[in-house]
């Protein structure tokens, strides 16, 4: 009997239930931790059940399957990426709040158990990087980039589905680990030998390895897809130096993904070999060396930082120029700065471990290389300021994020220079100063960028504007909450408080941890306001409808089509003659034309590959984690068969007849003609139906 049990369930047992400890040994402390962990598990289970019941009740399974899950449309895949990111963001923010709460009462105590706290900071970091930031920016590039370059889809639509499937599988694994615990306590960077079998024998590190592996595979494929698309599928006339800056940053990001992601896939694979097959890559004995892991990890990790920040740089470039009603200042130099940053990002990985004992000369070289990145980054900030300079600036929600970003980001830059200085880094490394620094880069940088992008391009994707007041409230709460939560961590770091501390014993830390805890509360409100904004916007969607498609007087091609765009984006691929292509069309009165003839349009056909990979990926990772070998073999077989079968599919495209294209386009043009254009003073009112008053000599009206 027990043999069968072991065969079916591997090493999965009752103790994997998150509240098991509280049942087994019901002390107050265990019960509190059991309630927190059990509550989280309950939310996952109820969330999944609720979603299933909702879809069944609405009778939308077929719609979900054919219109979304199997759709190769880059826009829908982009939205699904962002949905994953939003769900994971909610979880990781709640975890952050728990950690802040623990430290706010953490003088000599607290309410979390050490293992629980270790899981919190590990999942928080892993989720925020791999399952929040990466899917979020992948989703936004997926949605916007093909529209900006005048393409109908990515070069490899099915590979795009597979990327989504792999990310979904990784996210699912992280969520499953809430129900069948534990997760790793080794931090998001998973340094061995702590994560080796001899020090972390339970299933936690294996969950982490497979979740991260799935995510990195997904991002590598995505990078290839984006780069090829930008190289090969630009509209006629769209030379490289006519591309919008967002597309430039998407290209740089894609290249960084291609070269930056594989080192981590390799590192986690080697760590898996250590753990599963008794290799000694990173162990202390038999010739292993953990330094190799740390170098591989940061050979990924530092390009990763710029993957996370370059895309937002592109978003902010679009936001600044659009809401300043002005050309982007210093376009060429911004492009050069972007490429400089992307290149330099491969040369600085060692600054993550100045304290590991290499010579002063090596440390100094890497320190100076790191400071060099500050130059192009600083230039970008000045370029954005000069984009507002002599413009007419509208302080809408994306602009609040953008302005908050440049003012906070330079502070993060300053502390980055401090950390890049090896002699000082010896003091603040591994402290909360480091935590404050990278949150200072990633929250105002990446997260604000993502939220600015959401506010900016949401009307494009869904055909109605997001509500402005709740949007502004959320934005201000984010800015204030960020400052309150993370500036105190700088002080704590200078005072020598280590990161990942469950408890501390210096009373001098207490005021700062309490302040940071208050910041976490403000951030929770910011998150709540985002949800309210979404709710209010959906409720008022008919009043805020912008089907015409250009609510912000946009400059690039994505605004030249309806909101939401048709599946094929443009009835006829536009021809490009300059930068800010759509703005030029509007200036010359050539926007909203009816083409002479409409072609038949060939689009990729639906495919279930993404769903199959998501399911088998989840199953394989789960089986590997719990040693259910039958599940691993089964999932591998299904994947293999699916890939081979896909090779035999002959009908990979479907044709949209020209009549349908014409009908759709004429209906849209009719709508454009019936709409009253508005000037920018009415941008945030219900009169804005997505048609701006045409610019006069470039001046936005």
């Amino acid at each position, binding site marked *: 009997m027990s043999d069968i049990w072991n065969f079916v369930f591997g090493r999965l047992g009752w103790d994997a239930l998150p509240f098991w400890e509280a049942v087994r040994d019901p002390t107050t402390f265990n019960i509190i931790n059991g309630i927190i962990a059990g509550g989280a598990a309950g939310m996952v289970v109820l969330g999944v059940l609720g979603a299933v019941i909702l879809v069944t009740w609405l009778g939308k399974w077929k719609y979900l399957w054919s219109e979304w899950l199997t759709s190769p449309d880059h826009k829908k895949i982009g939205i699904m990426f962002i949905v994953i990111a939003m769900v994971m963001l909610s979880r990781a923010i709640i975890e952050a709040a728990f950690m802040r709460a623990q430290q706010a009462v953490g003088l000599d105590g607290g309410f979390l158990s*050490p293992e629980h706290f*270790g899981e919190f900071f590990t999942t928080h970091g892993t989720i925020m990087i791999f399952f929040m930031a990466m899917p979020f920016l992948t989703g936004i590039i997926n949605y916007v980039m093909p529209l900006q370059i005048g393409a109908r889809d990515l070069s490899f639509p099915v590979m795009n589905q597979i990327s989504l499937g792999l990310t979904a599988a990784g996210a699912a694994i992280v969520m499953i680990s809430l129900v069948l615990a534990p997760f790793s*306590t080794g931090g998001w960077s998973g340094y061995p*030998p*702590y994560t080796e079998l001899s*020090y972390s024998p339970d299933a936690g590190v294996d969950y982490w390895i497979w979740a991260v592996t799935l995510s990195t595979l997904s991002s590598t494929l995505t990078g290839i897809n984006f780069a090829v698309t930008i190289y090969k599928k630009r509209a006629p006339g769209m030379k490289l130096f006519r591309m919008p800056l967002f597309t430039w940053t998407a290209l740089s990001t894609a290249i960084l993904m291609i070269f930056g992601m594989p080192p981590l896939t390799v590192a986690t694979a080697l760590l898996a070999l250590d753990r599963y097959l008794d290799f000694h890559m990173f162990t202390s*004995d038999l010739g292993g060396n*953990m330094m190799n892991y740390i170098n591989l990890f940061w050979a990924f990790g530092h390009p990763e930082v710029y993957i996370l920040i370059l895309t937002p740089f592109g978003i902010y470039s679009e936001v600044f120029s659009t809401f300043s*009603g*002005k050309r982007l200042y*210093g*376009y060429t130099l911004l492009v050069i700065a972007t490429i400089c940053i992307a290149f330099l990002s491969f040369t600085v990985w060692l600054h993550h471990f100045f*304290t*590991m*004992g290499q010579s*002063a000369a090596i*440390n100094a070289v890497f320190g100076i290389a790191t*400071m*060099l990145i*500050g*130059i192009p980054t*600083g*230039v970008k900030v*000045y370029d954005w*300021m*000069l984009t*507002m*300079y*002599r*413009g*007419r*600036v509208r302080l809408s929600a994306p602009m609040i994020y953008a302005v908050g970003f*440049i*003012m906070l980001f*330079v502070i993060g*830059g*300053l502390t980055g*220079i*401090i950390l890049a*200085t*090896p*002699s000082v880094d*010896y*003091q603040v*490394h*591994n*402290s909360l100063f480091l935590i404050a620094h990278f949150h200072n880069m990633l929250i105002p940088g990446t997260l604000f960028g993502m939220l600015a992008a959401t506010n900016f391009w949401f009307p494009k994707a869904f055909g109605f504007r997001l509500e402005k007041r709740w949007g502004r409230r959320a934005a201000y709460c984010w800015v204030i909450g960020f400052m309150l939560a993370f500036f105190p961590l*700088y*002080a704590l770091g*200078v*005072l*020598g408080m*280590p*990161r*990942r501390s*469950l*408890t501390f014993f210096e*009373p001098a830390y207490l005021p700062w941890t309490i302040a940071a805890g208050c910041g976490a509360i403000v951030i929770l409100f910011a998150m709540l306001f985002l949800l309210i904004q979404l709710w209010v916007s959906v409720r008022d969607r008919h009043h805020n409808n912008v089907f015409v498609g250009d609510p912000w007087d946009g400059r690039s091609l994505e605004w030249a089509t309806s909101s939401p765009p048709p599946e094929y984006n443009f009835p006829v691929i536009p021809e490009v003659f300059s930068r800010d292509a759509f703005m030029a069309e509007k200036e010359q009165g050539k926007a909203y034309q009816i083409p002479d003839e409409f072609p038949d349009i060939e689009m990729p056909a639906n495919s279930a590959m993404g769903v199959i990979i998501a399911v088998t990926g989840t199953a394989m990772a789960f089986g590997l984690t719990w040693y259910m070998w039958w599940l691993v073999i089964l999932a591998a077989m299904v994947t293999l068969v699916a890939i081979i079968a896909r090779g035999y599919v002959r009908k990979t495209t479907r044709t949209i007849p020209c009549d349908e294209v014409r009908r759709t386009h004429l209906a849209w043009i009719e709508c454009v003609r019936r709409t009253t254009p508005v000037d920018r003073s009415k941008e945030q009112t219900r009169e804005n139906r997505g048609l701006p008053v045409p610019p006069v000599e*470039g*001046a936005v009206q």
Partner: protein
Amino acid sequence: MKGIIDSFVPLGRGGTILFVMALLSGCSHSLPGFMNPQGPIAEAQKHHFWFVVFVTLIVVLPVIIQTPIILWRYRYRGNAVYRPHWAMSRWLDIAMWGVPFVVVIVLAVVLWRETHQLDPYRPLDSDKQPLQVQVVGFDWKWLFIYPEQGIASMGQLVLPVDRPIAFQLTSATVLQSFFIPALGSQIDVMNRMVTKLHLQADNTGRFQGKNMQYNGSGFHRQRFMTQVVDDAQFDDFVAHARRDGYRLDRQRFNQLNEKSDATDFAGMLGIENYQHGDLMAFSPIPSRLFDAIAHHAPIDWTSLTTSPPQNRKIMDERMPPSNATPAPPDAEENTHDEADDNGGEKAT
């Protein structure tokens, strides 16, 4: 260059951050960390910190000051000049590439100098012979071996004032990071590898030491007290350890390798009421113990030749730890001579 750095120090001392810190913590004189440096390395790091801050502010401040001004002056409803096609200015471009470039060059020159000057591997300039200390990181406690003296300690790292200390460090388990913020740099400790660190204390006193690299559920408890004493007191500490230290035999060494913190280990030694920062001293210890741990070599237990006296007193009673917990009266009376010399009393 040193002059440049020094000229920024007064500004640093008056820094708002520190002022607010002092206000909130209510005891500015005992701030932990390198803003209250107790040795030449930490002192230099503090100077370099503020130097970097003030030089970098040249680039940062214009953004923080000008962004709100631009935002207001060029607001939509304002009537400032509007030039939608203006997107290039050669002079501004030269300034915004050039100024950061110059700033980075200045920072880089200082960085190169200071990184070599403060390299943890570089022996400190001093006319005194450095004291050798070997540090072993266990889960979740530190063992300090004094190879020249043939003793070891735990819970408390006793160092002589004004004398360079040459640390050799390794880990018996996973990656850890050894750090005494008030004295200077941290350095990683790794199994099968030996790292080096040179520090010096300018003042006597008690300074927190810690592990900075997460290594499991007892991570936050892996701390120790650095007790800086004068030469006479240090000699006294050595004499005590030799006379009354615990014998570090095979059984105790195996206990060291168990996952426990210093307090748990004190319990295994039979010490009651162990407080953080109390001293546990060991003597005799196996010869070349550090090398054996660092290189996975067998430990030479036969070198534990002399057996210690059986009626040994508990070390932490002899060396009252801190201002916080005075030793019991009888213990103080019994060990009056030593108590005067142990340095723990005056370190407040």
